[in-house]
């Protein structure tokens, strides 16, 4: 499998002295679905944003699809960013525009000059966007304002916008943190399905351990800006979890089947 992303000893210091990333190194191959877990403030969001250089790193290198994105600027940076789709906890759509327009925003990076500035999309792009909207089950909302949708529907628009870029890598910053359990499952299923169908590598920041275990091919545990766990989900033992979150296993609120099974086992 081809390598898509490589972190080499990446350090990020904020001006206020916080070390958000403290020597992070890892590699990612095509087709991987990585969950990044860790307590708040462990550097998950920073890690994700250094991949497409929304945040500039202080030291080290980030190599995206064979190119050092950490050195890129201006036009070269923008064309590299097109290879990376991103979805957010708060969806970050333009709510006064239609669902279709929001999905088409994924093409803006590809459009040059006048057409890009005024958002004059090609018929081909429009067809593609509509079929994507249909695939995500939002066809009856294509011409509604994005503000009219529910949380789960907004996140689906976010996914469609990212997929419109035809990315090689998809970054998801806590995609289900603001959703109800049912919408959360729909979104995770969609993410898994869409990325594996299109051979897009995917990195998801998560707070839900059970979700991470269920969907990912690999889990990275961050603690205080350092990778303290990097392996397949079945290797994520209680000790590893305790190391990531810096507290004993009993102090953690863990959803999902694993803990339920254990509870019933303890009762019996």
């Amino acid at each position, binding site marked *: 499998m081809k390598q898509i992303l490589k972190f080499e000893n990446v350090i990020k210091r904020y001006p206020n002295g916080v070390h958000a990333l403290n020597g992070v190194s890892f590699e990612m191959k095509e087709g991987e679905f990585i969950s990044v877990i860790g307590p708040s403030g462990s550097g998950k969001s920073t890690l994700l944003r250094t991949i497409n250089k*929304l945040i500039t790193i202080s030291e080290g290198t980030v190599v995206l699809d064979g190119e050092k994105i950490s050195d890129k600027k201006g036009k070269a940076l923008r064309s590299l960013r097109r290879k990376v*789709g991103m979805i957010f906890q708060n969806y970050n759509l*333009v709510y*006064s525009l239609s669902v279709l327009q929001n999905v088409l925003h994924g093409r*803006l990076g590809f459009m040059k000059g006048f057409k*890009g*500035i*005024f958002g004059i999309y090609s018929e081909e792009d429009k067809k593609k966007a509509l079929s994507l909207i249909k695939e995500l089950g939002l066809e009856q909302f294509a011409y509604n304002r994005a503000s009219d949708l529910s949380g789960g529907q907004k996140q689906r628009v976010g996914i469609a*916008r990212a997929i419109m*870029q035809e990315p090689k890598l998809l970054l998801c910053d806590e995609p289900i943190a603001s959703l109800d359990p049912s919408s959360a499952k729909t979104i995770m299923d969609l993410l898994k399905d869409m990325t594996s169908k299109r051979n897009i590598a995917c990195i998801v920041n998560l707070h839900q351990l059970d979700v991470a275990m269920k969907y990912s091919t690999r889990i990275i545990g961050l603690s205080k800006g350092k990778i303290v766990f990097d392996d397949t989900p079945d290797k994520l033992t209680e000790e590893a979890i305790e190391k990531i979150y810096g507290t004993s296993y009993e102090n953690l609120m863990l959803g999902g089947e694993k803990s339920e099974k254990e509870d019933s086992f303890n009762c019996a």
Partner: protein
Amino acid sequence: MENVIIEKKINKKIPVKCKNKSNFIPIFMISVAILTILSLFYLNIDWVKLFSRVPDMGHVFWQLGHLDFSKIDLIFSSLLETISIAVLSLLYSLVLGIIFGMFAARNIFKIKALSIFTQSFFTFLRAVPTPVWVLLMLVCLGMGPEAGVAGLCVHTTAFFTKSFAQSFESISDETIEALEATGAGRLSIFFNAIIPTALSQIVAWAGMRLETNFSECAILGMVGAGGIGFVISSSLKGYDYGTAGVAILLVFIIAYLIERMFVRIKRSIN
């Protein structure tokens, strides 16, 4: 301890104000009072004469009330001129205001020096009142509506630059970040995300400003920039109160209609 405080206060009235209140407000009030007295002395206002002329005010308004429609064609043509000046200056300023507002907003190009320079330049333009700009333009461009349009544009553009920049800055950084992540350029983000989000605010500012520009136009006519103001001032000077009354009434009606129209437009946008 508490008992001591209460007993002590028993003979006096209990205070209710904060212990360490700032004395800024009393100082401010006293200064205002002193300045008022000084201004009155400086201007040397003759209060007796002033009050003796108050009944004349009633007389003038009574005269204005005797509407005289004999010069209605002149009034209408000058009213149209005034409306055109207001609309044209609004349109030009809208375009200029959006462009300069883009430079002035800190979250679009993210160049601090550019925003600070643009903002301070337009603060300077805004500090000089519109009639002064129109007089300057009259000197440069000669008498007529062109000077009115140009003079109004200066102040209106300065006003729009500031208010649009504020509207643009109120858009969440996360939305901008989402489009940055797609690889879109700054101008592309501005026209596809920021303008659509700020549109209802832009319309609201434009409506407010059209009303102001229209009523300012009426003043501008008096300094020689054409329009209904010229009709009002010349007929007042010639004691032609009936004609002036019609013109003033029409100014009021148009201003009111503009306000109602924009209330409707705003409602349909939201």
